Structures are given as structure tokens and as C-alpha cells.
């Protein structure tokens, strides 16, 4: 069961990614990316990482992609009349579904047959917020703080670039 869930979530994730690249409409592409994120959260959940699974949805699907959609819609505005035909879903990526299904079944079958010494070794509360916090704010504290500095630099940079352009125009 676990193996089956793992492989189907993985396949759905790949499907979401492929569909995102193939879409012409930016809004629909963003939605396929959200789909891929939720599938990725499923993969984390099967791997006994509940905290990461929820964070994947909360941060990526719930916050970042909503902002993406917001920006796309603000720049694009509502769909125009003539654009309706172009947005029709291309059908040929559906050909990817049978190979993906085969991949799921084969993967589930193979991993069912391999012994999993890890499963019994998991302590209670594994992958919970306590473990993740202890790792991030203990062992990897420096890297964690440095990443936030990098993000801060990116924000300041984006602001500086945005303001500079406005003055020039």
C-alpha cells in the first residue's frame, strides 16, 4: 500500500510538471505546478515526513503560488474573447498516462519485494516539527541563517531594481 501510494504520488508529480511545461496559458500552467506541489507533499507524507508534507502545501501551494497567480492575473487581466480557442487543452500529453501507470505498478511491485529495514527503526514522532526544528536550529544553524540572509539580499535587490526602473521611465 505504502509503495503504491509513493509511486502514484511520484507519477502524479511528474504528470503535473509535464503538463505545466506544455500549457500555453500561464494561469493553467501555474495550477498544474500547484498540482505537482500537492503530489510532492503526498510523497513526503508517505516517507514519514508529516511536517515537510504540510509545509510543502502551506508555503509553496498556499502562499508562493497564490502570489504567482496574483501577479500573472494582474499582468494578464481577464481572458480576452479571441483567446478562448488557443487555451484548449492539447490532448497528446495524455499519451504519457499509460507509461506513467506502468511505472507506478512496476515501482510498487519492485519496492514491495525489497526488504525495508528502515521502517521498523523509525522512532515515535519521526519527521515531526520537533525533529526538523532541532536539525535546522541546531546542527545546521549557520547554513539556515545564511539562507535567510541570501533571501534578504534577493528582496533588497528586487526592490532596488524595481525602483530604479520606475525612476528611469
Amino acid at each position, binding site marked *: 500500500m505504502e509503495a503504491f501510494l509513493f509511486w502514484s504520488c511520484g507519477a502524479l508529480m511528474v504528470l503535473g510538471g509535464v503538463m505545466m511545461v506544455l500549457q500555453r496559458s500561464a494561469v493553467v500552467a501555474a495550477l498544474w505546478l500547484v498540482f505537482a506541489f500537492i503530489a510532492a507533499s503526498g510523497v513526503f507524507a508517505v516517507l514519514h515526513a508529516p511536517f515537510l508534507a504540510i509545509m510543502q502545501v*502551506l508555503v509553496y501551494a*498556499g502562499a508562493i503560488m497564490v502570489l504567482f497567480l*496574483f501577479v500573472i492575473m494582474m499582468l494578464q487581466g*481577464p*481572458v480576452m474573447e479571441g483567446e*478562448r480557442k488557443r487555451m484548449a487543452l492539447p490532448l497528446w500529453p495524455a499519451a504519457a498516462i499509460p507509461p506513467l501507470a506502468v511505472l507506478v505498478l512496476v515501482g510498487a511491485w519492485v519496492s514491495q519485494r525489497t526488504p525495508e529495514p528502515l521502517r521498523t527503526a523509525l522512532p515515535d514522532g519521526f519527521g515531526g516539527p520537533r525533529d526538523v526544528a532541532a536539525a535546522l536550529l541546531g546542527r545546521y544553524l549557520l547554513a539556515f541563517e545564511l539562507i535567510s540572509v541570501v533571501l534578504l539580499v534577493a528582496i533588497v535587490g528586487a526592490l532596488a531594481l524595481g525602483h530604479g526602473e520606475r525612476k528611469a521611465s
Partner: protein
Amino acid sequence: MDIVLESLAKIVFMFLLIMGMVPALIWAERKGAAFIQDRTGPNRASIAGIRLAGLVHPIADVLKLVFKEDIAPTHRHRALYNLAPWLVMTVAVSTYAVIPFGDYLELGGKRIPLVVADLQVGLLYVLAVASLGTYGVVLAGWAANNKFTFLGGIRATAQMISYEISMGLAVMGLMLIFGTLRLTDIVAGQGGLLFGFLPMWGVVLQPLGFVLFITAVYAETNRNPFDLPEGESEIVAGYHLEYSSLKFALFFMAEYCHMVVGAAMISALYFGGYQIPWLPRPRLEQNAGLLLVIMLAAIIAVSLWFAVLFLRRVQREKGKFGDARDREPVLGAGLWLVIAAAAAGAFLLRPWEIGPAGASVAATVFQVGAFVGKVVFFAWLFIWVRWTLPRFRYDQLMRLGWKVMLPLGLANLVVTALVLAAVGGGK
């Protein structure tokens, strides 16, 4: 197999609770609005001439929405237009999975925890699902391909993103105090007493956090004073303008589901969930017989009082309308008399001689009742606020979210952490 059955039973109970409360809330909203605005409210729909105080109106609404023609704009994005109402409704009902509605039910020597999914990260799950709720609204606004719906969708996105942050920050204080993200642990932790007399509810420990949380919940449900995504005086009806028939009904129902979810979250996080103050579980079980007798006596007294009120109306309004409406007070009096008789009949079962197994079940029933009562109160609070406060202007909304609530949330978090460090509490 047992666990599947148990889970199914719990899911069905929760679902019925929500779906049962939706029409009741719609009725309460109309009658409440009428009461606050000093008018009668809905009283026209009737069954065989009997109006049942407007309770027939939700049924009439459902019939109307089911049989209405489903009109859709020609230039919509077909797939997303159909997806949006479904998404809104799914998100609205799936939050319930992690909210505990009781402690446990002991049946045949087995303890069944009264929560559908006891997630280790339950609190984050609620926030994650709430953040997904934005998609339904945004897609509805965009896919309908109309400038007004589009503006509604854009407003909803900006508003929900802004208030989600304050919501998360407000809840963080509770997480620090109880040292867990598991909702069952948070509710169980609110059972004790503070200084020996105050119930240790979240609202007592985190008053500022509670104010921030309830404000953010109101903003997330898109209800007045935060109903700018709908704003009927500015953008007609906002994101659901182009929906009709059952698709509109889904948006309509989702709003009330969100209200029930919000009320359940407020009572679980800040008002002790199923905990009854000063009556912890062991004391409930010891005094189950006495409490049952008191409860039955209270039911009899209250229903007799209502019956008397109706009987007086029967006398006063004899032949007032000259049609079936004259029988309404008689029906009301009869209904309350039947309830009083049923409660009196329950005394024949000798509730004061209840055994330990029965006492355990009775304690569970009391706790679930306490939870439902709190949810009903906070759902009513939503209605009360809606008909009392005017709508914000958009700049006021953004200023409140980013310049008032966000700094206050951060300050609350820092102060909570400092106090906990000084006291040496927390985990």
C-alpha cells in the same frame, strides 16, 4: 476493519453536523439580520399554510437553486469555471478532519478518540487547507472572464495572503505555551485551572492572540466587515457573479461551512474545545447521574416556559388571521409540551442510578454537547458581527492587516516567548 468503520462513523457525524448547521445558519442569519434591523424577516414560505417561523425558507431556497437553469457565460474557461465551486466546497469541509469534537467514547471496553485524523501537525494542516481555499475564489473570478468577478478574485487573493500571516503568528503563541501542534493535545491542555479558579483556556492565556486570530478568521471567511471580494455595492457580487443554480449554491454553502469551521477552530483553540470549565472528565463521570437529572429538569423547565408563552399567544391571537396561520401557536405549544413530556419520561429510566459504563458515555455526550454549544455561539457571533459593522475600505483593510495585525502578532509572539522563558514553562 474496525478502524475503518469508526473513521467512517466519525466522518459521517462531522459531515452531518456541518451540513445540518448550514440551513440552520442561513435561517439564523436572516432572522438575526431582521432582529438587529428591527423587522420581521422571512415569514412567507409555508407548508399547508403553516410558516414555522421562517424555517421553511431554507427548504424553498434549496428547491429554487436545484431547479434553476444553470446559466454560464459563453467566454468562460470551461474547465476552471467548473472546478472552482467544487474546490471551494472541498476545502471548506476538509478542515474538519483534525478538529477534536470530544475526548473519547468508551464503548464495550474500547476507547475511540473523537477526532477523525489526529495529525501530529494538525494546526499546520488547518492553516495549509485554509491557504488552499484562496484558489477556489481566485479561479472562480478569473475563469468567468468578467471584469467584476476578476476584481473580486484579485481582492480575495490579496486579502487572504495578508491575513493568513497574522493568523499563523497568532496561533504560534498557543503552540509555544502547549509545546505541540497536535490539536487534541492543545484542547486537552486547556482542561486545567489557572490560579485555582480560572479555566486555562487559550483566550485567558493569549488574549491578544485571540483577538488577532478571530479577526484573521473573519477575513479568511470573506464575511463582513471583510467581504470586499463580494462587495455588492462596488463589484456587483464579486467572484461568484457569473455562477447560477447549484454552482452558486456551492459557493453559498461553502461560506456557511467556513463559518462553522471558523467557529470550531476558535472554540477548539481558544475556548477549550469540548472542555467544560470546572468539570474535568473524572468529575463528570462521578457525577453523571446528578448532572443528567439537572439537565433533564432544566429541559423540562425551559420547554414548559416556551409552551406557556405559546399558549398565551393562542389565547391572545384567537382568529387573528382566519386561516391555517391561526394554528401556528397551537403547534408551537404542542411541540414544547412534547419535548417536556419526553424529558419527564426519561426520568422513568432512573438516570441517577447510571452505571460506570453509562457514566462514561454520558460524560462524552456532555463534552460533545459543550463543543457543539460553543460552535453554535461563535457561528452566531459571525452573524452578529456581520449585521453590526460596516465594510472596510480597501486601503483600511490592507493597513489593518500589514501595519497593525502583523506587528501586534510579532509582539505577542516575542512577549509570550520571553514570559515562558522567565517562568520556565513551555516544553
